């Protein structure tokens, strides 16, 4: 008899994964040929894609340090992907020893790898969960073990919301998470957009098509639409800006033109 239709689907590594593609862009080898193939296809349209990822990582690093500087010691990174280098816990624990980090991803391979890499780190947990179901994240025992929701938390939604379609109500999910956070918590967010890409939009659409083909649609949103994710937050200076402009530590002029694609921002709950 064939597998009944109600059975859960197994992991199919012949299907490209967003997190492994991301790893490839960052020069990692935590990926398979299918992932690299998809990544190279996307790079045909936008050769500077790795620079966007790099700019994301750099922004995240600055933002985590900023959060640590604000006295925050609890970090919730949703859509953490495959740990490579300069991960949140490394940056956070360097800036604030004892900082606690919970990683969340819905890619079982990314989660399994994270668990292998982070084994033995008492202050880090990895949860297999989906941003679209915030309650599963908030009520998980791992989160409960490490994070006290009565104290401020830095919530990282870095390069993830552009993978959630409007039909899945990303705004609702973000609002639900916000409601669970104590005052003084930070939302650290980046999001893809056609705005700022140093290419005609038609070229960039080629990348969108690639992600559509791998059944992981990339949703480009306008700055205005991205700003709406910060509803209920006060924007931290300098607001929602291209990544290199957010509290730069080196001259933005030196940055690759691709680094200015999309937006980044940090908000604080009242």
């Amino acid at each position, binding site marked *: *008899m064939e597998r009944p239709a109600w059975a859960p689907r197994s992991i199919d590594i012949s299907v490209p994964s967003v997190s492994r593609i991301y790893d490839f862009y960052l020069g990692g080898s935590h990926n398979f040929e299918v992932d690299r193939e998809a990544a190279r296809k996307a790079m045909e349209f936008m050769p500077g894609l790795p620079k966007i990822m790099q700019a994301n990582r750099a922004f995240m690093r600055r933002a985590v340090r900023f959060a640590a500087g604000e006295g925050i010691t609890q970090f919730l990174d949703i859509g953490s992907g495959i740990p490579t280098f300069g991960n949140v816990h490394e940056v956070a624990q360097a800036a604030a020893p004892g900082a606690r980090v919970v990683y969340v991803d819905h890619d079982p*391979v990314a989660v399994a790898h994270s668990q292998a890499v982070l084994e033995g780190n008492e202050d880090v947990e990895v949860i297999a969960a989906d941003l679209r179901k915030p309650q599963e994240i908030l009520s998980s025992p791992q989160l409960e073990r490490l994070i006290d929701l009565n104290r401020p938390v830095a919530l990282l939604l870095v390069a993830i919301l552009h993978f959630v379609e409007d039909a899945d109500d990303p705004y609702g999910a973000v609002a639900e998470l916000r409601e669970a956070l104590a005052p003084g918590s930070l939302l650290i967010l980046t999001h893809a957009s056609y705005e700022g890409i140093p290419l005609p939009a038609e070229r960039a659409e080629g990348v969108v098509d690639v992600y559509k083909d791998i059944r992981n649609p990339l949703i480009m949103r306008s700055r205005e639409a991205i700003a709406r994710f910060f509803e209920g937050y006060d924007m931290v200076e300098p607001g929602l800006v291209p990544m290199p402009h957010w509290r730069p530590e080196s001259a933005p002029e030196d940055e690759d033109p691709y680094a200015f694609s999309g937006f980044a921002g940090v908000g604080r709950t009242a």
Partner: protein
Amino acid sequence: MSAEPDGPEDRLRRLTTIWSRAVFPVTSTSLTRAEFAEQLLPLARRLSHLLRARSFDSEEAKAVGAALVDAHCTDPEALTRTLDCVDAYLVLYCGEDGPQDELRMRSSRLQHAMAAGYAQALRERTLAEQEAIAQAALQAQGVVAQALHASEARFRAVFEGAAIGIGIADLEGNVLQVNEALLRMFGGSEHTVRGRNVMEWTHPEDAPQTWKLYDELVRGEREHYHVEKAFNRPDGTVLWTNLTVSLLRDADGEPQYQLALMEDTTERRLLNLRLRYEATHDALTGLPNRTLFFERLEKALGAGEGQRFGLCYLDLDGFKTINDSLGHAAGDRLLVEVADRLQSCATAPGEMVARLGGDEFVALTTGPGTEREVDELAERILNALITPISIDGRDLLVRGSLGIVEGPAGERTAAEVLRSADITMYRAKSAGGNRSELADPEADARAITRHGLTTALPTALERGEFFIEYQPLVHLGDGSVRGAEALVRWLHPQHGVLGPDRFIPLAEHTGLIVPLGRWVLEESIRQAREWRERYGEQTTAGPLRINVNLSPCQLSHPGLVQDTVEILERAGVAPDALCLEVTESALIGADDDLLKPLRRLAEMGVDIALDDFGTGYSNLANLRRLPVSILKLDRSFTQGMQQFPADPVDLKIVEGIVTLAHSLDLAVTVEGVETGAQAEQLRILGCDTAQGWYYARPGPPERLHELALVDATG
């Protein structure tokens, strides 16, 4: 560390800056360029040492190459740019004043070793990462497989352990899998179910839509359906199920399988059939009962044009006597035997016999020819009862009364038909029993009206629908009004004014006559007092008297004397103003107990009149015994005097009666006086008082005042 301008440290830093500028764009580090340069500075220092060291340490050079990989310069372009930079600037910035050729040679070897170290480190890192991600994928698959296994195990447990039958078939109908419960339902062995095709399981009792629903489902036009369905078991028995079939689709929504859930309802169905049988059959005789009979009758009455029905309603004559004398067990056996005989009378299609209860049976015949058939059926039934029934060694003669109703379908309701049959049966019974009567609409109507009036009587009294008319009693000697007879009327909301003959027998039958009679008495006495108060002393012959009829039922009612006394006393009317009229038939054979109350009333001064005298077998000798003071001659005697000359025989009879009455000290009143000649004749014959249309018809009490006043003044 201090960096004096153009000192060794400053030169080292300048080299590092050039290096970092060249490599930074091709790294994927998240550090800033300045931070990245800080990472490169120690490497540059190590290169500087290696350049100038006495002997060349290739391992150390390889380590510097490997360190590049650790700084996330995993793009080979980073190595190219690094080597370009080392080649061009290392000797220049770090060679100090050493021999240029040697330094160049050393730089070249150094570059080779760095490249080898970088390549090895990158290879190791790549392999390690590949290994790690493959492990992670395996691990994740293991977790999912485990979850899948657990889920499958759970589903298997549900599937196998379920109390309802579960089966899965593909869309062609091939049965792929069934559970234990389903196998048990089908009788156990697997090959009878598995591998078979769903479409083989047609059954003669399949509802018309069953297979249409199936087709819609397998075509993907329907998600599920629910039917009651029968299956043939291999052993020839029938399995009845509540069957729910659902369409299973794959993740893309394409129809894949059909899932059947079935519940064995065979037992329940049998039970239902038995309950249905028990609910529709008489436990004693096994005949269909009232419920089933009504269903059939309704069906027959609802049949199309040209269809008719015939009904025989049988009630055994004197069954109660048999029950009372021989006991219920014998009665029951008699009923069973009667049922058997009746059943043999109605064997044709469209015929049935049912027991309605007690000793009441019905036989029904349906079809176009029932006009003739129903008579034959009735005859067969009466014939079937001719042979005596032997119970406990006694031969019992059983007779019955049969009411027959026949007619076309579609005109009457079952209840109406049965009522007509019941009424007709009672006519047969009243006519002596052991016969059949055919329903007659007029007789039915009468009976129905009777029934309607009977049930309306109690509320009629409450609602004050009765009223009284008074017919004057006139003294034949002087023509003066002496009193009046109270005659009760019923102003019926539908039927209008009804005379006592229409409802007094019904009131007698139901016992309502007692309160009704009391009301008439009260009302009449009240009227008598009114007359007395107004005119009592003006009439020549003394106060006006009131005559009130007393029915046999009232006569035997124990409260008669007390009620009468109370009414008279309450109204303040003397007993001699009242005359109670009792029919002769009510007193025939009356014993002393019955006469006692009359006697007491007579002793108090109430007059007792013997009404309708001369209609029964008048026992003249008996007259002496009765506490009676007035004879009221029946109107049949006066009818003969209406013509002229009067019937001489009638004259003789009346004369004789009057003589007899007077000799017993009884007054004589005649009824039905309609002409002056009649009145004169009766006066000559010696009658005392008279009433009739000649004087006045019964009317409202005011009429009597007028008559009395005319009489008084005239």
